[in-house]
């Protein structure tokens, strides 16, 4: 299978500090890979480097066939990153945010409503300003954008953070479905049980290095979970 990500001795700096200190990594198309390691290990930096947001200053780095050292912008439209921040506009409604993000990325407008429905954001909640939402609801809006864009490479940094159990199941389902459609998923999560159940390969990081790649000790999770009926949505007023 073709490599979606290929890093060789990749170094990335923030100031003078090497947040990636010679990373070697191969991820095949359609693979789900979990990045694991303590805080400061370089997981977020690796995800940002894959998205082209963090420059690789030396070594080789290719993502979806794009040379990230020579040109890290060209891959971005094919990549979706769910980071610690949700990259949303507080003064726009949920629907406005998703619609803008999808159109900005050159996506199809008809993907907006199904993605909102999938994350339980359709209806009244869709017309609420994002600034009035709870942290978990904001995260679902960001996930909804990812679902609507459906990029070739999904980069998820703590995708379960702030979500209730039902929506964590939805995230797991989305990841498995994406991989089933041939999308590549690389994610970091401290939700060990869930994360390990999703993946077939775990990459251990420490100090900006990849120190091991192991197979999970338990198998992939049961079939993707979905919410057939949207949950009642209490609106958190900030």
């Amino acid at each position, binding site marked *: 299978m073709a490599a979606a990500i290929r890093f060789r001795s990749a170094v990335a700096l923030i100031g003078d500090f090497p947040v990636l200190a010679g990373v070697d990594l191969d991820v095949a198309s359609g693979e789900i890979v979990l990045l694991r390691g303590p805080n400061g290990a370089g997981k977020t930096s690796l995800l940002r480097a894959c998205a082209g*947001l963090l420059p690789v200053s030396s070594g080789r780095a290719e993502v979806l066939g794009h040379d990230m050292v020579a040109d890290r912008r060209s891959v*971005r439209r094919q*990549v979706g990153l769910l980071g610690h921040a949700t990259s*949303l*506009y507080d003064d726009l409604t949920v629907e406005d945010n998703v619609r*803008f993000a999808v159109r*900005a*990325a050159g996506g199809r407008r008809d993907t907006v409503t199904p993605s909102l429905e999938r994350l339980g954001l359709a209806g009244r909640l869709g017309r609420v300003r994002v600034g009035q939402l709870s942290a978990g609801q904001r995260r679902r809006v960001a996930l909804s954008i990812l679902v609507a864009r459906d990029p070739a490479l999904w980069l998820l940094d703590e995708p379960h953070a702030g979500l209730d159990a039902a929506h964590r199941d939805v995230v797991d389902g989305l990841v498995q479905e994406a991989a089933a459609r041939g999308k590549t998923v690389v994610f970091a999560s401290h939700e060990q049980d869930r994360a390990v159940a999703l993946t077939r390969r775990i990459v251990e990081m420490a100090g900006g290095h990849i120190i091991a790649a192991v197979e999970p000790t338990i198998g992939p999770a049961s079939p993707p979970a979905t919410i057939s009926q949207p949950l009642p949505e209490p609106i958190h007023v900030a």
Partner: protein
Amino acid sequence: MWRDALLMAGKDLRIEARSRVAANQVAPFALIVLVLFGFALEPDRSFLTQAAPGLFWVAVLFCSLLAVQRSFAVESADSARDGLRLSGMDPAGIFLGKAGAVALELVGLEILLTFGIVVLYGTNLQGAALLLAAAATATIGLAVCGTVYGALAAGLRVRETLLPLLTLPVVAPVLLGATRAWEVALGQSADDGWRWVILLGVFAVIYLALGVLAFGALLEEA
């Protein structure tokens, strides 16, 4: 590029329509500036009438700083700028869209300020063609120049104080040109007002070109 510019301008104007920062904060600020100038200078109306073009454009200048700061503050909150970068939008389109939204907000404020100088300073409006041409070129100049420096300052912790420090000296030609052109239009000077409009146009074109070419790099560095 144009599609991205329209999308970006639409998004920024929608944020403004929902948050009403320009309507509820910048516009009152602009009017307060006019009133304070009236207090600070002589209450003699003839002096205020003479000084009206300069006071008008100083007020517009201050408002442009607030509009630009707001335009980039919404991108800094919650790392929205990362979302923009990941969208793959044309940086030149983002620049044109942001500058266009700032320019439209300034046009609204200028209409309000024009009423302000008529009512408060007793200005008699005349020379409409020159007034409008100078206002249009000065507004574009302030918007594009402010957007370039707004992007430059956006990633820095001291952006709120740095933006005026970077922008005010650079836009001095706009203040000078627009004030002189308006003085001519209002019959306060016998100078050739269109020369000043040309200066304003050249300034706008230079910063428009600079923004289109450099905004990608500025967005990456911010």
